[in-house]
């Protein structure tokens, strides 16, 4: 019985992937996640130039998950030489997430990042925490397709993964547009837009006011989105949203995910979450007569 996974041509030792924006500000923390058992790791979204992101509070824990509005802080792609050279030592595939405010900016970042030969480029067209970046592209099939198409031209054969937002009224349609524009995989879902107010302060807690919800609260949304995408495209799906344990991971895979991203779960279960999920999956598969992780993918649709 094996957890080895072929994800859009990339070989993963297990289907767990460190989600972008989690720990991924520097190479050493990414390597720490790899050592802790992640099948692949994702660098926090890289932008065209240095960007500070929002004032604090930017990340909060609440009773059913997390809420964040970091605001795409990035040193910019030009300031990452040291990280790239350290990441050459990574024992697992490294995925580079990118963002921009225009298709042209996405292209600029993708061109520079492609030279560093990451295993895959995640095109973040789904961040809810900036007016100009992210989500604005992922809610519309035409603009999603335009971004993927422009990135495709300069990505030098490196597989592209479109990261989608559950805010889109028809996520299957967006996924299909990305597939047609040349994406090799779909990543779903980014966070769900939300807000928390402190009633004594009578103010939203996040400095950006609105943010993205992650963690257990959004798992059913993630399962539904992965389900819809699986029905709409042939390319593999990296499912994420509320995965803290093996059962969550298996659920997303049965909905159609080939691999599973873990983000907030790193907080709830510690960095050991990758190993725990892998071990739990192995045990469950053994008990339920599955020989490979692949057999789980989309099984709930049959």
């Amino acid at each position, binding site marked *: 019985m094996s957890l080895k996974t072929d994800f859009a041509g990339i070989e993963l030792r297990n289907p767990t992937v460190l989600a972008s924006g989690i720990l991924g500000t*520097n190479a050493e923390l990414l390597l720490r996640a790899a050592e802790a058992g992640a099948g692949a790791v994702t660098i926090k979204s890289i932008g065209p130039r240095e960007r*500070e*992101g929002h004032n604090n509070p930017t990340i909060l*824990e609440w009773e059913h998950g997390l809420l964040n509005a*970091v605001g795409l802080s990035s040193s910019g792609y030009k300031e990452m030489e*040291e990280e790239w050279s350290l990441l050459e030592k990574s024992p697992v595939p490294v995925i580079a997430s990118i963002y921009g405010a225009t298709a042209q900016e996405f292209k600029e970042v993708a061109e520079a990042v492609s030279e560093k030969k990451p295993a895959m480029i995640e095109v973040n067209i789904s961040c809810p925490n900036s007016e100009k970046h992210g989500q604005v592209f992922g809610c519309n099939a035409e603009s999603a397709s335009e971004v993927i198409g422009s990135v495709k031209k300069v990505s030098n054969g490196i597989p592209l993964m479109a990261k989608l937002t559950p805010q889109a009224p028809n996520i299957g349609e967006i996924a299909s547009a990305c597939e047609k524009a040349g994406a090799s995989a779909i990543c779903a879902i980014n966070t769900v837009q939300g807000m928390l107010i*402190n009633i004594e302060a009578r*103010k939203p807690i996040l400095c950006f006011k609105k943010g993205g919800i992650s963690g257990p609260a959004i798992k059913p949304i993630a399962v539904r989105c992965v389900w819809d995408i699986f029905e709409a495209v042939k390319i593999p799906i990296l499912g994420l949203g509320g995965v803290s344990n093996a059962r969550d991971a298996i659920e997303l895979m049965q909905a159609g995910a080939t691999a599973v991203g873990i983000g907030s779960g790193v907080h709830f279960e510690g960095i050991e979450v990758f190993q725990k999920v892998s071990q739990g999956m192995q045990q469950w598969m053994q008990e339920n007569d599955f020989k490979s992780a692949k057999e789980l993918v989309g099984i709930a649709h049959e």
Partner: protein
Amino acid sequence: MNKLPKMCRIKEIARETLSIKTFVLDLELNATPGQFVMAWLPGTDEKPFTLTQIGKEIAITVQEKGKFTKELFSLKEGAQIGIRGPFGKAFDFENVKNACIVAGGCGAAPVLLLAQELAKKNVNLKIVLGARTGKECLFQKKLSEAGELFVTTDDGSLGEKGFTTQVLEKLFEKEKFDCVFSCGPEIMMSKVFEVCEKHNTECQLNLERFMRCSFGICGQCAINEFRVCKDGPVFFSEQLRKMTEFGKFARLKSAKKVSLQEYAQWRQ
């Protein structure tokens, strides 16, 4: 533990030095020396602060520096601020019998409760307290009640003229410590660590970096593979030896890695 900010009232404001005030808050919190809270000014920002009092009421001791602390300093008793936490790993002093604390500037704040706990346990305690001038010397009286205190100032206006690490070197000539605890400017702490390594003495440092989440998920406060908010803020010699960035580099709000000097200028 407050996961989300809990609003509480400023019960008392005490001036400690020219630039430092202590804010006593009507919030009950269980915490251990070295841990920190996130203090929130709604609509403005949120920043980490060490605790200088715990129990039925807590206190944070703050140096006036940037926009956030200026706004905090403008608040009067009775005003409300939000507190999340406590967070982070505390000092470990369980088996310590002979100890030295080295504090520089507002670095006296994170070691105050530690000094008081060590005193309660009758630990043989030497404290070296450094400041730029006598008027900026923080917690001189409180620390002198916890152990034998040596004061240094850059300009010689109080105590000995010179650096804390010079006093530490001298103490090592006749003392053996189970552990040296320190907090202050990172340049000072890296020298403290160097002196401790030379004398084969365990060291615990309370480090600082720009933070966001405060519970170890965003990676903003990384020093190499360590997260200051979750793996620290207190770090041990074994970890410090692995930190190639310690004393040299830190990350700005964008996560861009810069020299410690550039970081310190941005933090002003």
